[in-house]
């Protein structure tokens, strides 16, 4: 529906939120360590698992900030 192309609020800063998880998990230099471990799980593992929550939050914020008005 072409009349639905209402301009959406697109702050470039919001889109940096999409970049953040990528950099965080795609650069092993940041997390390829054993310590600090949590509950016996090395940093390498819990850090990456924690970013699953991180990416959900980041994409959630971007979704909320860019959803088209209803």
């Amino acid at each position, binding site marked *: *529906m*072409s009349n*639905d*192309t209402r301009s959406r609020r697109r702050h470039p800063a919001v889109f940096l*939120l*999409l*970049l953040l*998880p*990528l950099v965080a*998990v*795609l*650069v*092993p*230099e940041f997390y*390829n*360590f*054993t310590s600090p*471990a949590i*509950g*016996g*799980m*090395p940093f*390498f*593992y819990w850090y*990456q*698992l924690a*970013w*699953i*929550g*991180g*990416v*959900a*939050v*980041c*994409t*959630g914020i*971007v*979704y909320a900030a*860019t*959803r*088209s008005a209803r």
Partner: protein
Amino acid sequence: MIPPFNSLEFGIVVAMFAVVTVLGFLATRWKRAASLASIEEWGLGGRRFGTWVTWFLIGGDLYTAYTFVAVPALLFGTGATGFFAVPYTIAVFPIVMFAAARMWSVCHEHGYATAADFVRGRQGSALLALLVAITGIAATIPYIALQLTGIKAVIEVMGIGGDWPLWIAFIALAAYTWTSGLRAPALIAFVKDILIYIMILVAAIYIPYKLGGYDVIFHRTDTALSAKGLSTLLSGSQYLGYSTLALGSALALFLYPHAVTGVLASRDREVVKKNMSLLPAYSLMLGFIALLGYMAIAAHVKPVGGTAKAPDTTTIVPVLFNNQFPHWFAGIAFGAIVIGALVPAAIMGISAANTFARDIWRPYFRPRASDREQGLVSQIVSVILKLGAVGVIVSLKLSFAIEFQLIGGVIVIQILPAVVLGLYTRWYHRWALVAGWVVGMGLSVYMLYVTPSKTAAHFGSASFAFKTWGFDTKMTIWTGLVGLIANLIVATVLTPLLGRLPRGRDETRPADYEAVAAPPIPVGPEHAAGTAGASGD
């Protein structure tokens, strides 16, 4: 060593299988349409799935039974590298969020049912659309076959001989997919994922508890892996391979026809976008499933089947469950894996069949094919694909299919320029995109060909070692990314040079890429969108 047959486990698996088979047939009535005899209804569920159905559908589609057995097997066999599945399934969502929304919009506006449909409309090139269609189908077929390895691993561990359970499972699957189309896996996905979530929640708490905690698991794993020269951390030379495998797999994932089908079947672009922040819940589950590989090492699991030189490590998770859980719960977990194979196999079969009907049958054999005929062709092809997959798995040796899956991502990523760049720009010339595909595909396949594995001389791995080309390093890179870069360079350099050749006609307008769904209109006895109770939203 074949484990003893256990009738309780077997009975539970059979009962669960029976329940989802009934559900599969009942799905015909769900979100009822006047007729299912079209790709629009049979193959895309009428494009009316809301947030929760889409979440279960795409989740059930992408996080497959094969993943559940293969990812832990990878950690079991190679250590830290196998954990790439986690950064991969993190990176995918921010990458595809907006592209998937644009894809939904333009396909909704023009009634496109596949990526190749979109490419034909956007680039005005029948050849490019054909290449996209063939690439997608070729990448999907071995993936369907691989879903059987999940079932096969379970039946082996349950102590059942022969391939007959595979035939029964896929014949039932083919039958209810024939009648219900995409509605069947969408409905079964609820059962599948709830079961898998329960299974992994229990496994991630109960097994470490029995083994003495995660510190014991990691300690034993470290000892066992270092004896083989491996580690629970990456070595410096593995960094690039790890990152590019995760990034490349993330770029490739939503180019697969079954992922496109999941996106297009949703009701609105906002449903698609919202799901990009809800789907990571599946990644968390996958992360803990991955760690089952280490739990298997710590519990001294021995794989069942395969050969002494190349044991079938896909059996380690079922064996672990069999050893650690009481039989009744192991039965539920096995049932979950079996159902977990059926959902993605159904969606993959439907999406590859839709692609065949829309982008090969219609343009090249029957240009005037009606919606009804296209739907029927898709139904027939979907059955052929499923039964063909069983035939392949029982007649060929298994590693053959696994190598194909490995190259699936490498080849499917070569359609990225035509599809994804096309969502944003018309700058690229259609012939430059064709040339880019040819070069990228050629280079990738060549690189795969010269990569040996422990047991095979060619097509051994999708990680390309730089030393193959004489570099003095142990570093590797994901093959598909090299092919993609070559593809992009060729397409970009050739576009200005081909300026004199006629450009294809673009039937889309900029506004189409932002379009939202029309308000629900009544279709049949129920409203089109969002009113069916089962959708939960």
